[in-house]
């Protein structure tokens, strides 16, 4: 019953946030650009860090597993590429971004609720669900796929840096592997995942913040819930997309 209540309220909030007519397009555009900067540029460092290490670890572990086998070494490049493309870049990046962006969104909107900023806007006649949530969702839908694309390239670079300079395989082999058996459908899967996860982590976090009540403990709880529920839903939808698209 409780789950149904939250789902119903979540759907209604999103309906209001996404489909209501904006009061002033210029203000929404300004807010969208601010959010794109926050979500996109603000997440570059963490995405850079996790992607390079993700690729490096994947390459090293595959090199370890392939050691002494009959499988050609250039497969390391191939496996790192597809691992990054299909799974690591969209899913792991989104899980990490749920922690960074999701908690930030829940805390920002929840703080505004507690300090009566949302009430103040409502009384002015602003549709707060639309003004506060829509730019965040749109910014995520644009910027997270860009970050995920970047993460794929960085993971491949990470794999290269962890193996080629240390003699596991030659750079020619690694690059050959990266080019081998490329299927553009995997890129499609990656973007489906990136867009779905972007929507989930932003909307769930905004929902947690928007309806926060009480004080700092409740705000902390909302921020934690934003991350936990986003992560659970990302993993669930990761599975569903895998079932449906592969």
């Amino acid at each position, binding site marked *: 019953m409780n789950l149904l209540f939250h789902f119903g309220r979540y759907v209604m909030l999103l309906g209001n946030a996404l489909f209501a007519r904006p*009061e*002033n397009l210029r203000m929404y555009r300004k807010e969208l650009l601010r959010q794109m900067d926050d979500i996109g540029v603000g997440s570059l460092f963490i995405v850079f860090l996790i992607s390079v290490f993700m690729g490096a670890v994947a390459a090293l572990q595959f090199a370890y597993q392939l050691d002494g086998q009959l499988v050609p070494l250039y497969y390391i490049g191939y496996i790192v590429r597809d691992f990054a493309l299909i799974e690591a870049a969209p899913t792991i990046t989104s899980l990490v971004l749920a922690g960074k962006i999701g908690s930030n969104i829940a805390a920002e909107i929840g703080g505004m609720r507690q*300090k009566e900023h949302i*009430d103040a806007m409502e*009384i002015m*006649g602003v549709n707060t669900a639309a003004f506060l949530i829509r730019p965040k969702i749109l910014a995520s839908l644009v910027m997270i796929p860009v970050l995920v694309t970047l993460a794929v390239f960085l993971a491949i670079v990470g794999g290269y840096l962890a193996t080629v300079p240390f003699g596991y395989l030659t750079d020619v082999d690694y690059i050959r592997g990266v080019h081998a058996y490329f299927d553009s459908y995997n890129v499609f899967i990656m973007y489906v995942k990136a867009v779905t996860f972007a929507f989930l982590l932003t909307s769930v976090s905004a929902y947690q913040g928007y309806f926060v009540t009480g004080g700092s403990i409740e705000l902390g709880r909302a921020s934690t819930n934003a991350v936990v529920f986003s992560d659970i839903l990302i993993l669930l939808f990761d599975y569903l997309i895998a079932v449906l698209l592969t």
Partner: protein
Amino acid sequence: MIRVEDIYKSFGDHEVLKGITHTFEPGKTNLIIGRSGAGKTVLLKILVGLITPSSGKVWYDDVDFFELDRKQLRAIRMKVGMLFQGSALFDSMTVEENIRFPLDMFTQWTEKEKVDRVNYCLERVGLDRINEKYPSEISGGMQKRVGIARAIVLNPSYLFCDEPNSGLDPKTALLIDELIKDITYENNITTVINTHDMNSVMEIGDNIALLHQGELVWTGNKTEVMSSDNQILQDFIFASPFLKRLRQAAIAKG
């Protein structure tokens, strides 16, 4: 004019408002007073539409507030200004950005017109040269005044103030009261103030409504407060032993 008719509001089993009927008059400072938990804030939030009543009606002139569609509601909202207890200024915006937010959102004015209006409102509340400061860089009293400036920037017909004096020293509180009173009279605004500050009651109480345990138990003005023999009112106004003694002494002296 704002009129509430037979307003009831319950949260679960707890009945907070029990059939409130009252008229808030234009061009006057209408005060809602009462002890903590009497239902003042709930009534104020119902008046501005932040809480929906369990039953009853709220009329803005001849318009039923809770029967409006989104477009009509926005039109009414444009005529409403509100000063919050904690000022509710947006932390990430400067004073100027805070005040011009409704202008940016709802008007097509030129940049010059907006800046002029912001400066006029700041001047009207007795502030200048703080346009570029952030709310955290100014005092509580100044934040209240900026809150008033933001509330009046769209020339509202209705002004709501939730505990405008809370957390202020008596002198600053008096300044805020005077400011609200002057703005109300100058612009013929229907002002509703939720307070338990007795200085406010005695200084600017044109039309006072006393709430007690969710019921409207007394209405009158600041001069009638002293002469009323309503026991709940007297217990509220003269709550401290010192004030009780003072009142008795005044009565004894005729």
